[in-house]
């Protein structure tokens, strides 16, 4: 197979077989281009982080498919400004938001099935369309579509070098199934994701603490193409030292634990570090608005680990966990089971309990049940931890994605030294920092990937037509 791949002059080579790359491949192939998709992972793990996604944030003026009500451009943009603190490119962001509306029917036409909002996510039923079966089902549908369109897909295909000369790409060096190949393409779409699975890179940005992070998604996003392009002077965007991390179950696998390793217990817990000390207000806001900051909070603790302590009365207030919690009849015993000082944990919990006051406990909303005279305070759901047995979860930072990426314009074109490269486009996580400079908005990564993947595919095909 590699011989044919090498001897063919491809119209469009798409690097990366996740959502963005597949959208690009579909658009290019539908425009008549001869397309090759290079997917770094073996077939069962194809799809990059799209495998782990579950929804698509979509602007709409009236009920659309599974989406209720309306979600207009200004509200969507306001939501984006809120999470990014203004770190976005308004023109690109508004274009992305506007285009999302026509993308949903396009996705349905290309095999994606949607389902009504999942249980526990009713707050998203207006803004986010959920993929039936999640992101892997979407990825499967797109692979079937590209197969029907005659696109060639190579798995375990890792690009080692993009040969940029004189402002245009001349070819690619890659290994496919372990063999080195040189590939020729008239146009190139880079959709190979971020570098969050590259622990060395994370460590150079974050310090050695990053080696204790868990990677929630694919182990194949190691940023080789991004690094290679940056080394050749491609314009970049996004903070190179930042990544999006949430607090997840500390017992999750190093890579690919995905959604199931989430823990929603923090608002009903006392959270301590290795030294048995509290370090932040666990009840600051409802969990969907706070889970993202807890990744960084835990990352800042000794050995990047924390422990959430609850009592029997709170065990069923949050989504079931993947792993059962540690359990003990006393606080001291629980500390021991978690590997932290029992007496110190007892002291912290006693101090917390003493600071709790009477009042109505309402788990489903901000109840204002706050501690008095405690530092840091717990400002909601501060109910004493007294009812045995006691339970404990280990928390670690789980990295979702990185922000540093390639800078693109509204046609998804990549540039170097401020000048557009003649035949290179980028889509998905590799350029998402252009729009999402900080924070995260649920389902927006798939929106960026779909919008820019389609644009990149159309532009690349038009370039070679």
């Amino acid at each position: 197979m590699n011989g044919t791949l090498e001897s063919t002059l491809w119209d469009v080579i798409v690097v990366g077989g996740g959502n963005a790359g597949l959208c690009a491949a579909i658009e290019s192939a539908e425009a008549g281009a001869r397309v090759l998709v290079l997917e770094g992972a073996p077939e069962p793990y194809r799809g990059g982080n799209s495998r782990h996604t579950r929804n698509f944030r979509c602007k709409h003026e009236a009920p659309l498919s599974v989406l209720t009500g309306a979600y207009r451009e200004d509200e969507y943009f306001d939501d984006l400004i809120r999470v990014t603190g203004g770190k976005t490119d308004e023109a690109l962001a508004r274009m992305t938001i506007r285009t999302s509306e026509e993308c949903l029917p396009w996705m349905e036409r290309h095999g994606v099935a949607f389902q009504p909002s999942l249980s526990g996510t009713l707050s998203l039923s207006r803004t986010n369309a959920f993929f039936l079966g999640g992101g892997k089902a979407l990825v499967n549908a797109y692979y079937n579509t590209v197969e029907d369109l005659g696109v060639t897909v190579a798995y375990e295909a890792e690009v080692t070098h993009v040969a940029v000369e004189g402002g245009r790409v001349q070819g690619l060096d890659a290994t496919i199934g372990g063999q080195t190949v040189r590939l020729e393409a008239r146009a190139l779409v880079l959709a190979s994701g971020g570098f969050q699975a590259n622990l060395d890179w994370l460590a150079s940005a974050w310090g050695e603490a990053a080696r204790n992070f868990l990677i929630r998604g694919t182990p194949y996003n190691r940023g080789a193409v991004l690094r290679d392009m940056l080394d050749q002077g491609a314009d970049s965007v996004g903070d190179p030292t930042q990544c999006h991390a949430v607090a997840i179950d500390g017992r999750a696998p190093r890579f690919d634990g995905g959604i199931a390793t989430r823990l929603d217990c923090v608002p009903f817990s006392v959270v301590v570090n290795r030294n048995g000390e509290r370090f932040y207000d666990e009840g600051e806001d409802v969990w969907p608005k706070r889970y993202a900051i807890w990744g960084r909070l835990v990352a800042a603790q000794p050995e990047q680990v924390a422990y959430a302590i609850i009592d029997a009365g709170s065990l069923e207030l949050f989504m079931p966990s993947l792993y059962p919690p540690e359990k003990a009849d006393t606080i001291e015993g629980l500390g021991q089971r978690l590997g932290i000082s029992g007496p110190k944990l007892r002291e912290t919990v006693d101090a917390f309990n003493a600071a709790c006051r009477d009042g109505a406990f309402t788990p489903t909303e901000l109840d204002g049940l706050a501690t008095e005279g405690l530092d840091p305070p717990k400002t909601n759901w501060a109910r004493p931890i007294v009812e045995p047995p006691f339970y404990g979860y280990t928390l670690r930072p789980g990295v979702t994605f990185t922000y540093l990426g390639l800078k693109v314009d509204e046609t998804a074109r990549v540039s170097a030294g401020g000048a557009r490269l003649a035949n290179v486009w980028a889509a998905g996580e590799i350029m998402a920092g252009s729009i999402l400079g900080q924070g995260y908005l649920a389902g927006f990564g798939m929106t960026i990937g779909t919008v820019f993947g389609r644009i990149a595919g159309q532009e690349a095909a038009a370039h070679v037509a």
Partner: protein
Amino acid sequence: MSLDFTRGEAPVALSPEERGQDAIEEARRQVQICNACRYCEGYCSVFPAITRERAFADGDITQLANLCHNCRGCYYACQYAEPHEFAVNLPRALAEVRSDSWERFAWPHGLAGTFQRSGVALTAALVAGIAALFLALAALAPASGEGFYAYLSHAAMVAIFAPAFLFPVVALGVGVRRYWHETGGGPVRWAHLKEAALDAGRLKNLSGGPAQGCNYENGDRFGNARRHSHQAVLWGFLLCFASTSSGTVLHYVFDAPAPYPLWSLPKLFGVPGGLLLTVGAFALAWLKTKADPALGAPSRWGGEMAFVLLLGLTGLSGLVLYAATGTVLVPALLALHLGAVLALFLTTPYSKMAHGAYRFAALVRDAQGRAA
């Protein structure tokens, strides 16, 4: 730079040796992963039923297993399917629990293990059934009679088939009672039965929800071939049953014995019913050869295949018998058809045929769970 797959200290996946030793334990492990993920809620009734619980007793797992129609949508969508270390393959885990449960509930014990697992055993039952009918034809040849009754009197047929029909009904009844006890079912209301009948009649749980059918004969591509084939079998079987019932009523109430003309209830039910049953059963058998056996219960593949073919043969032999009316082939074809019917009925509580009863019970139980 290397891929470091070092694990946390509390592995969730059992080793391959541990898996499979206890089907319920393995299914429970997977269901707990599903309950922390919930991406598959839209496919069928299994996932909403999972989200109604936090802990799963053995009976809960049995109920989920019988509710699962093995459409396989969740397997292909699963980000935790092998080679992922969580090794989730829920269609298979539930198929193993399901077929084990039918063997456990069957009365008397033991027979279900044989006929579910062994296609050879079911074929032997068929041969025995046909032989019994040849013997009956030879030994009980009536002095006179019309149509089939020229070869085997009505009284002889009733003497053979009334017990062959009533016995499986009683045996299945015992099995379903056991099922109901294990899964903690409550008093049944009409509303539960109505919901279950609608779900069964439309095969809602093979529809894939918002998707277009199952992932069965063509990998992760969706299709309705299996659902439609199964519907043909289900409705074909019910029409054949209606045909026999209407004949019984005509015989005893209206004193109008067989043979019946084409424009009569038994034939109007029976001919389309036989066609649907035959076409549907052979289509299901063909689809089964295309599907991945590793997403079902591989140890039951032979028994399942033999059962589907027996259903198809029952329908086909009935149609051929009707077509051969008045020819010399009738006695042989009559023995073949009635032998197939006899084998099908007598093995019902122990073959894949029993799934109809347990599935219906599971749908009723699920309707109760939703109402609770």
